[in-house]
């Protein structure tokens, strides 16, 4: 039997995704696991793999179309399955027969016997229940939500894109928000859907308006959310890193994998997190989640903006493994080829501007993390050692911390452990 292929939820909380291109032609048979389409979200380009062998009978959305999550994108059939009348099959499945994005609206509001089309009905029209699972999103990505529901969701920081509306047109009502809060609804993860194509800059005599890319808008949304919802405080630290640099040189002289200072710092962060587990947390509305393993996001600057792929289980990785994985993630980040899951998770991030000579800076926490470490350049400085001024390599760091799950003393303890590790770098590897 033919069936509908629907837009998968490629990132938690996403309302829509871009059907970037079809990777197989209509009627060409594909095996299970074959990439049949490429899907783009705010952050990642995802290959959509076939779950089972089959072929596409008809595509329902054209390339470059923004599609609401869960909406049909193609009609597929099993390999060799005879379908004489594709139109009838499409109709039977209730999908639109053209190549436009199907509207997300499950049903339009019907009106009682009212023959005067341009005048309102005398009595309110009964709301038409919509499928409970269908998000309240119009074809253009607009979310139908009542004013009080929007206000309430905003008060608790609830991501309205994850809520199914039960009102007319699938409108999210206050009761839907309350139910989502009771169920521990997800915080906002992504920005609203964006136009799939970036228009050309608008130029004028005295300025150029550069249209937002999806990534630019996502950065703006997430970091604005961070500074407006996560109360930041900052703990500064510095360490002599002469021995750390020596250690790095020693490691690099032996193996063919080059380890950076940053890789050592990532490892030291993981060690410090294991030593101060109260730092390895993230904030939720009704609890603080503490992790067992340490996942650390690494800020990678790309041409279009900042992305933060996540290294997993850093506490159990060797520094060379960290170096390899970091390099792989950074390369793919710059190529725009990260998978969505590689961008999620973790409790902390590291952002290093040392290679650009920055002495010291503070960073904004990357939600839902509870901290981010801002790393400056290792500089040759005059250092007082045993009451004498000597020359040493000094590294300055600033840890931004979300005060909701973490108090100052915890952060201070973490900073003491971390700078201690940098000054006795063998312990990093222990």
């Amino acid at each position, binding site marked *: 039997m033919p069936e509908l292929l629907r837009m998968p939820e490629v990132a938690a909380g996403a309302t829509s995704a871009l059907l970037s291109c079809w990777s197989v032609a209509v009627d060409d048979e594909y095996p299970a696991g074959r990439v049949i389409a490429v899907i783009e979200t705010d952050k990642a380009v995802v290959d959509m793999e076939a779950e089972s062998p089959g072929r596409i009978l008809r595509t329902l959305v054209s390339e470059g179309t923004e599609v609401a999550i869960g909406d049909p994108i193609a009609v597929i059939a099993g390999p060799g399955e005879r379908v004489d009348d594709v139109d009838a099959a499409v109709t039977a499945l209730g999908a639109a027969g053209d190549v436009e994005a199907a509207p997300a609206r499950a049903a339009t509001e019907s009106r009682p016997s009212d023959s005067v089309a341009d005048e309102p009905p005398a009595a309110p029209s*009964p709301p038409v229940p919509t499928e409970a699972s269908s998000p309240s999103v119009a074809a253009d990505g607009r979310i139908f939500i009542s004013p009080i529901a929007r206000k309430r969701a905003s008060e608790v920081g609830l991501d309205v894109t994850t809520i199914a509306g039960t*009102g007319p047109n699938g409108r999210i009502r206050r009761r839907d928000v309350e139910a989502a809060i009771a169920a521990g609804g997800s915080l906002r993860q992504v920005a609203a859907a964006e136009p799939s194509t970036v228009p050309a800059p608008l130029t004028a005599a005295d300025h150029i308006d550069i249209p937002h890319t999806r990534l630019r808008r996502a950065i703006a949304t997430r970091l604005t959310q961070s500074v407006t919802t996560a109360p930041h405080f900052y703990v500064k630290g510095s360490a002599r890193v002469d021995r750390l640099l020596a250690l790095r040189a020693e490691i690099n002289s032996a193996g063919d994998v080059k380890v950076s200072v940053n890789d050592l710092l990532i490892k030291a962060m993981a060690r410090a997190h294991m030593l101060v587990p109260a730092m390895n947390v993230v904030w939720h509305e009704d609890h603080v989640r503490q992790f067992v393993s340490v996942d650390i996001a690494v800020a990678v600057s790309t041409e279009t903006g900042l992305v933060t792929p996540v290294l997993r289980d850093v506490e159990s990785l060797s520094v060379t493994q960290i170096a390899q994985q970091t390099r792989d993630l950074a390369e793919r980040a710059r190529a725009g080829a990260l998978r969505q899951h590689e961008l999620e998770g973790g409790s902390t991030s590291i952002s290093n501007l040392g290679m650009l000579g920055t002495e010291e800076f503070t960073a904004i926490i990357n939600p839902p993390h509870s901290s981010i470490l801002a790393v400056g350049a290792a500089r040759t400085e005059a250092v007082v050692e045993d009451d004498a001024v000597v020359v040493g390599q000094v590294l300055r760091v600033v840890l931004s911390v979300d005060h909701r799950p973490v108090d100052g003393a915890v952060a201070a303890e973490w900073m003491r452990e971390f700078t201690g590790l940098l000054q006795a770098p063998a312990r990093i590897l222990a």
Partner: protein
Amino acid sequence: MSEVSPLQQSAPWVRLETTEADWDAADPALLGTMFAQLILIRSFEEFVLQLAGEGLIHGPAHSSIGQEGGAVGSVLPLVSQDTVNGTHRGHHQFLAKVLTHLAPGGIDPTQPVSADIREALLRTLAEICGLDRGYSHGRGGSMHLRWDEAGAIGTNAIVGGGVPLAAGSALAHRLARTDNVSVTYFGDGASNIGSTLETFNLAAAWKLPLCFFIENNRYAVSTKVEEVTGEDRLSARGPGFGLASWQVDGMDPLAVYLAMQQALAYMRSGQGATLIEADVYRYFHQNGPFPGSAFRYRSKEEEAAWRARDPIDRVAGHLVRRGIMSREAVDAAIASAGALMAEIGEVLLEPVPDGKPGERRIRPSEWPDPGFVDTGIRGDLSEFECVRTVDRDSFTGPLTDMKFIDAVAGVMGRRMELDASIVVMGEDIHRLNGGTNGATRGLKDAYPDRILGTPISENAFTGLAGGMAMDGRFRPVIEYMYADFMWVAADQLFNQIGKARHMFGGSHPVPVVLRSKVAMGTGYGSQHSMDPAGIFVTNPGWRIVAPSTPFDYVGLMNAALTCEDPVLVLEHVDLYTSSGEGPVDDFDYTLPVGRAAVRRSGSDVTVLTYLAMTPYVLEAAEQVGDHIDAEVIDLRWLDRASIDWETIGQSIRKTNNVLIAEQGALGTGYGAWLADEVQRRYFDWLDQPIQRVTGGMASPSISKVLERAAFARAEEAVTGLEAMGVGRDA
């Protein structure tokens, strides 16, 4: 062969003309005053036209030049307490009344005018220019000149619109047991409109001390009087209505004076209303400084013939002939009147900075503050400061189950007993044991002079009540047998009563109460079944109360009769026969202005309703009570200024859902403005669009099943509540 014999109207109809002997007999001081008034008015009007030519008059300048003789001749025999009003062309009547008020002993044309007169001319000119110094702070302008102190009760821009108001003033004079009269000036154009003709009848029937003074200038803008009537001797209409009538040459001020003396004797002796037709001529077009011939609806020869009969020349001629004034003194007086206006103009005008030579502008300090724009649409309610206000929760007197209609008659009887200024009028209210529904039961016997059965002429008696209210000595209450009749009286309700306070500067009260019956459900069909609240609420001057219980009726009627603003008291025939809680013996309490009543507390939806829909909504709320917890608010005060946002807002913040429930047709419905206001005030608190329960598109029909289908009751309220998708099962 039938016998045919001529019939004669019972009222007299005469033409009065002066003789040389009349002029010889006239008091020199009277002729001097007549001349002084004529030249002051002529100079004033010439100056206004000059300003209009300079673009300094915003809006029309309806010149009275050529018509002064009618106004001056007719006003001179009046006293200050006599009242006059007029139409859009009313500068001359207003000024004549003001001059006569300020100089009751006459004006010597050879002497400079008094400071009072100079000040009055300045304020009148300022009003015409739209300036703060004017009598109405520039709001009224040329067409709305009012100075109550002088007995000038307001000119009017609606043709014929002021005529019923003058009847109200006349009734007030009579009820106050004075011999004062009211004079209403209008032209040949206004002689054909309903307001005027209805008032001819009403004033004649009630023998009001009212003079209808027709300045027949022969043209309604460019339309000739012969074109629009079969009898262009307009005074011929008077006897048909029973009005004693005079025709007189309006270019002869003494003839007008003598005719008015006769009419006054008739009116002051209680014989009733009169009509004077004065044939006059406006030298210029409808407005502006050009003659009518420039617009080709009349000839230069015709204009020259009328100008040859100029009233100023005529009076001046007799003054010189009789040796009262020399020709030189006449010329000097005319010149000094012109100089006076130029000097007054200097107060208001200044040269345009860096302008062309002679170019002038209004002095900026003379303009009203734009922030004054909406001030004084209604009163400040200070009249309630010393009034005992209670609500149901603070009322301590005994209560009983009573018929609603008994509360209606009960509270009016009590008020009339304590307040001799209350006068009730309407169709059949004096018969049928309290009118068609018993609302005035027992009152005609107790107060025969103050319960007045009217002719079927809503526009006239509504305007009459409005005029009484503006007069201030009486507090009129009018009853509409059916609410739909508001359209018949719409000019008086909305152009006159509803706007008067604001238009005349914001400080003149208009305490009139309109009891309007809603008769939906009685089988009276399309033209007798409307709920007028939605229309009245568009006019910000009106306050609206809608009592749904006998207790509330008493308290709201007392509030209406206290208020210095026009108040519509909505009554519903369904409620008349209902019973409910009401006072045993206390009919003196007043409900607080602007307080709604929460009839049922609930958490799921706020239902805003009023009048007879309230019990139906409560019934519906009980029916759905097992799954929808509705909060029912009986609005009680419906107008924009008095509605209880505090109670409404509190409820909406709680329920987040709003249903506005009313009985009547959608188009004229009340809920639209309220929904608009609610969404702007409470947008962030709403969980769905504001919903409405109303009747159908069309007005209800006669057929019982069609009528029932056309308006809303409990069943529709249930449907409306269920459709909101609120409550436990939703």
